[in-house]
């Protein structure tokens, strides 16, 4: 059994590909737990960040600075009664959130957190991702239909029309990124696999964002806008336009079923932004990998994870210090102190690994350090996108439905087609 486990640590191929069922399952569990935790943190961050944008504090009551608020919400949603409307279609009503969740989570099997840190590396990675994310539309359409009332039906129609039309723009933006993967110096073939794409960026020493300067950026911009529309977020949140259609397709849902939809929405957000990171921002590569290549630089960059956690611990510690010493706050002070201690401990651990793993030999610590580095940079880039999502929600008003479709078809589609053709032409000229 031990060598079975150790066998994977050495391999440079993703467990799925190496046929290593045990580690593949392990990765699935890690990713599933990881994404759920990420969704919970995302919930908290969204409420706090949105609040601070709007000159208010956000949840402060449950746990220190509202840290336990997401957990409280989760419990509340589980306890809440699960109402099924009268003549609703029981089976379809029950399966709709499942489809949504299925679509949101199967995308993660393909997302590469590191060269070998992914569930499996399918050679049609991107295509699989597009296919599964188009299944998400079904969940919404069916949910709207099953609730058997006016507003959810209109909400479902609207959001599915929106997702279908932005999927096209998204697909074309992805095609132009894939086109770039085939333009590396040694004439190797392009690839659809996600790890292949990041390898291509590594080989070409450039993030696709900056390749053929304006083209990469435009394709990235198209994808960034399409992904916001794909997940019904911020300026494109027609489905839950509270002011018109009460809450769109999940009006009739309540309790745990409703939280499944929220889980699916946040998971889809994280999935879509991680695809953007993989395609355009060089997945798990640390910034300036070739430009600053000296080992000293490697060491500095490997310190980043520990610095981030140290920073968080410091913030939490200051929070504890500034908390008023009144007896009411005793429990919260202890809670925050424990939290900051935990963060400090993780920072210390990362520091030790970074120092131990400095040598380039294949010792366990070095490989571990490298793995942490990959995952850290990838997650950091995804976090930047998450912050953008919240920022959009705070500042932008909502598009009207016809404007949204107009942009989808008349603006995004032509531009993405144009960028595709230009990339192809420039690619042929350059080679």
């Amino acid at each position, binding site marked *: 059994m031990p060598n079975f486990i150790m066998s994977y640590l050495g391999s440079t191929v993703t467990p799925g590909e*190496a046929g290593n069922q045990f580690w593949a399952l392990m990765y699935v569990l890690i990713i599933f737990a990881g994404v759920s935790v990420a969704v919970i943190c995302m919930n908290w961050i969204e409420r706090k960040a949105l609040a601070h944008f709007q000159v208010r504090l956000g949840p402060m009551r449950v746990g220190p600075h509202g840290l336990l608020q997401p957990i409280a919400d989760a419990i509340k949603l589980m306890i809440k009664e699960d109402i099924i409307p009268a003549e609703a279609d029981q089976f*379809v009503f029950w399966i709709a959130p499942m489809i949504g969740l299925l679509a949101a989570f199967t995308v993660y099997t393909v997302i590469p957190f590191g060269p070998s840190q992914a569930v499996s590396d399918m*050679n049609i990675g991107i295509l699989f991702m597009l*296919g599964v994310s*188009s*299944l998400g539309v079904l969940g919404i359409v069916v949910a709207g239909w099953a609730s058997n009332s006016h507003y959810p039906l209109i909400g*479902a129609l609207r959001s*599915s029309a929106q997702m279908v039309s932005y999927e096209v723009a998204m697909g074309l933006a992805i095609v132009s990124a894939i086109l770039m993967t085939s333009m590396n110096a040694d004439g190797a073939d392009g690839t659809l696999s996600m790890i292949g794409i990041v390898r291509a960026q590594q080989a070409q020493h450039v993030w696709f964002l900056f390749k053929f300067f304006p083209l990469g950026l435009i394709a990235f911009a198209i994808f960034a806008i399409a992904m916001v529309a794909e997940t019904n977020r911020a300026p494109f949140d027609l489905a839950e336009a509270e002011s018109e259609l009460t809450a769109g397709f999940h009006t009739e849902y309540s309790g745990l079923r409703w939280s499944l939809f929220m889980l699916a929405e946040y998971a889809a957000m994280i999935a879509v932004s991680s695809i953007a990171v993989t395609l355009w921002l060089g997945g798990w590569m640390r910034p300036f990998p070739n430009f600053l290549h000296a080992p000293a630089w490697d060491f500095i960059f490997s310190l980043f994870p520990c610095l981030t956690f140290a920073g968080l611990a410091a913030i939490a510690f200051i929070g504890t210090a500034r908390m008023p010493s009144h007896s009411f706050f005793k429990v919260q002070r202890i809670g925050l102190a424990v939290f900051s201690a935990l963060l400090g401990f993780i920072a210390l651990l990362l520091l030790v690994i970074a120092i131990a793993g400095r040598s380039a030999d294949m010792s366990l610590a070095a490989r571990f350090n490298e793995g942490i580095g990959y995952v850290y940079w990838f997650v950091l880039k995804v976090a930047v996108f998450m912050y953008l999502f919240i920022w959009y929600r705070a500042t932008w008003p909502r598009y009207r439905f*016809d404007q949204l479709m107009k942009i989808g078809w008349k603006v995004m589609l032509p531009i993405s087609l144009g960028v595709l053709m230009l990339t192809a032409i420039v690619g042929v000229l350059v080679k």
Partner: protein
Amino acid sequence: MNPAMNSAVTSTMNAGMAPIATPWFFYALAGLAVASGVAVITRRNAVHAALALIVTLLSVAGLYLMLYAPFVAGVQIIVYAGGIMVLFLFVIMLVNIERSSKERQFNRMWPVGLAAACALMALFVSAFTKGRTLFPDRMISLPESSNTQQIAGMLYGEAGRMGQYTFAFEIASLLLLVAILGAVIMTKKKI
């Protein structure tokens, strides 16, 4: 899918290709496809039928994966399950089914339908019984390059020379364009 065929597959598998084609995967997927196919016909509720159709399409995509044709599986999911089925559901939702289901059975062509079903059944039975002679026991030659390259080669041709099907491919796309234009004109409404 007799055992001989299966052993041939596993023996010629090179290092890169993980063994997907374990037999019980095939039986599970095929069974699922047939079951949901039957469900599509028998369900009274249109949305249930549509969902069953989606399950069928996804299981067919799984079969493609087993035949080392991931590209076709991916396209199958995107085009069929993701695209066309959504439009199916749109139509089902917009045309309120209660009205159409109440209408009387308007055609009395069931004998013709029965005859066609019997002919099809005969065809299947003969194909199944002859089995080996119809499909010689060819060794599945594992594609050396990935499935996507092969398709691209056939469609667009490699290294400058025209592929076999490029012309046909372009004609098909023109046909689709005509269909789309027709649809737009038919439903033209001052928006």
